[in-house]
């Protein structure tokens, strides 16, 4: 097995205070490996978003351990958590969260700007990644000029432009029609083929399951099922899977219909 990008061990998380205090996570252990697309599924209120927030270093666990590239998040200051997010994690949100006043190019570039990357190289990288998601021709478009699918592709470009080793996506197809949802999932599954990245997607839509290498079910703050559908290659061996699942192979073909060049 490859070294996990993010590893959670026995994570407990309480939210709120006083009478409103609830236990959102009850001893969750989960590790995300490179070259794998993990789907986190569960009913509303099951703890999916809390787990995503804890794994994404937005929240720290009440107890248990979370390590991102070997760095423990317990007791970390907000600035240290921000650095972990900046250096290692890319986010994709259901409602895109693009900056409405910035162009597609600048929306991607902002992820590098917050890291202090010089403008010239940041623009070059942002252009390259926009091309990767098939939006070279839209780099000067503002979010309101883009379709939902295009906006989500810009958001994905923003998540991957900084070479984040974990991409955490919260309902990335939740606001899209099926064709755009399919295209977005194709892009994310291609990203997950990168042996240097792990992708975790939180979703309700069962159609997304076809793209997953692993499906984790969470209920009432506990992982109740962890289905490994394909196993990533050991570190140092690139390309493909030991046993490609038939569904995944079909979707990989479909992804080729979308302008996308794997990094």
């Amino acid at each position, binding site marked *: 097995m490859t070294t996990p990008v993010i590893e959670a061990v026995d994570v407990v998380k309480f939210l709120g205070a006083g009478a409103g205090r609830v236990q959102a996570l009850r001893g969750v252990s989960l590790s995300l490996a490179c070259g794998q697309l993990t789907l986190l599924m569960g009913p509303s209120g099951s703890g999916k*978003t809390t787990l995503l*927030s804890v794994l994404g270093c937005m929240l720290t666990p009440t107890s248990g351990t979370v390590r991102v590239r070997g760095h423990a998040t317990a007791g970390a200051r907000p*600035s240290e958590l*921000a650095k972990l997010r900046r250096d290692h994690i890319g986010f994709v949100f259901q409602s895109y*969260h693009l900056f409405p*006043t910035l162009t597609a190019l600048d929306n991607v570039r*902002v992820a590098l700007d917050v890291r202090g990357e010089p403008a010239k190289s940041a623009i070059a990288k942002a252009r390259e990644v926009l091309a990767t998601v098939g939006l070279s021709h839209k780099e000067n478009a503002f979010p309101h000029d883009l379709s939902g699918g295009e906006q989500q592709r810009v958001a994905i470009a923003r998540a991957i432009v900084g070479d984040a080793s974990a991409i955490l996506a919260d309902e990335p197809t939740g606001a899209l029609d099926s064709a755009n949802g399919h295209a977005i999932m194709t892009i994310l599954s291609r990203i997950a083929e990168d042996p240097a990245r792990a992708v975790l997607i939180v979703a309700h839509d069962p159609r997304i399951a076809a793209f997953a290498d692993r499906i984790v079910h969470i209920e009432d703050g506990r992982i109740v099922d962890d289905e490994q559908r394909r196993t990533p290659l050991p570190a140092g061996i690139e390309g493909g899977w030991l046993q490609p699942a038939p569904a995944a192979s079909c979707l990989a073909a479909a992804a080729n219909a979308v302008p996308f060049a794997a990094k």
Partner: protein
Amino acid sequence: MSLIFRLASRNLFQDRLRFVATVVGIVFSIVLVTIQLGLFLSFERMVTTMIDHAPGDLWIVSRGTKCFEDPSLLNEHDRTTALSVPGVKEAVPIVIGFTTWTVPDGGTTPVFIIGSNPSTAGLHPWNLVKGDLAALAAPHAVAIDQTYFGRLGVTRLGASTDIREQPARVVAISNGIRSFTTTPYVFTSLAAAQSYIGTSPDKVSYLLVHVAANADVARVRQLLMARLPKVEVLTPAEFRTRSRTFWLFGTGAGAALFAGALLGAIVGTVIIAQTLYSSTKDHLNEFATLRAIGSSSRYILKIILCQALLSAVIGFALAGSIGLVIVRATAETALPIVMTPTLSLGLFLLTVLMCVASAAAAIAQVIRIDPVRVFRQ
């Protein structure tokens, strides 16, 4: 262009109505502060204009004199004593005081008499546009400023009237010698001034001391103080300070001007703070997204401060333009609003300070923002 600047400027300009409100707030505030401080500077200059134009090294004044316009009197023999002090070249007597000018078409108006013999290095009218100083030596000769033609009811050289029921004839006309009290200055000879005011010929208001070229002013001053223990000997700088302190703070005029300026700054700060806070609140999701993607607090602070500074620069540019128009419009009035490079720089720094201070509420809001918010929206 820096992405921080781009984000800040677009956040600022996105809601144009709110941006206009912000700029109006800054402009209102800075114009108000400009007027108040400009008036303060103008007032500060005008209350010492006579001291500034008197060519002496020291002033001998009655003990407790508060300002130039304070009509306390000295004895003529103090002049003799002063002249006996080594190093004193001349002690020019000056008489001042309020009296009544008869307007030729009827009625009277108060005037402020300044009497000093034109042959001495005393206090004489400057900026003469008609007539000459030597003519003031003639009996009943006076000099007036053309600013006050309307008030005095005379418009030409040679015009005659009465001052305190004694004849007076205009022999010289100056331009720009205005009084902050709005009471016109009338220059005349020493004897005429004593007569117009009704002062005894052996009484004077001030002695303007000229120190010999090779004498030390400080030393002469010490000697004068020793010889004249019942009066005060002031340097021009001390007399200026005393006059300013009295008029600006003793009367409350300066405090009122400062209070107006402070009020302007507070109103401006509140308006900017309100609009900046509301703009930040409207963009909370974007700030939460920045937080989520790992931006440092400093990065976000830079955006908000950049917004504040942009508001400051735009607001100051407009306020400065309006201020210049006001300065020009008041240039010929009794109390012109003064604008100096230092005041301009100070106002710009005040604008920046106001805007940055205004950003505090917005910053506090953003600092508390929870990046998890991005999952809930």
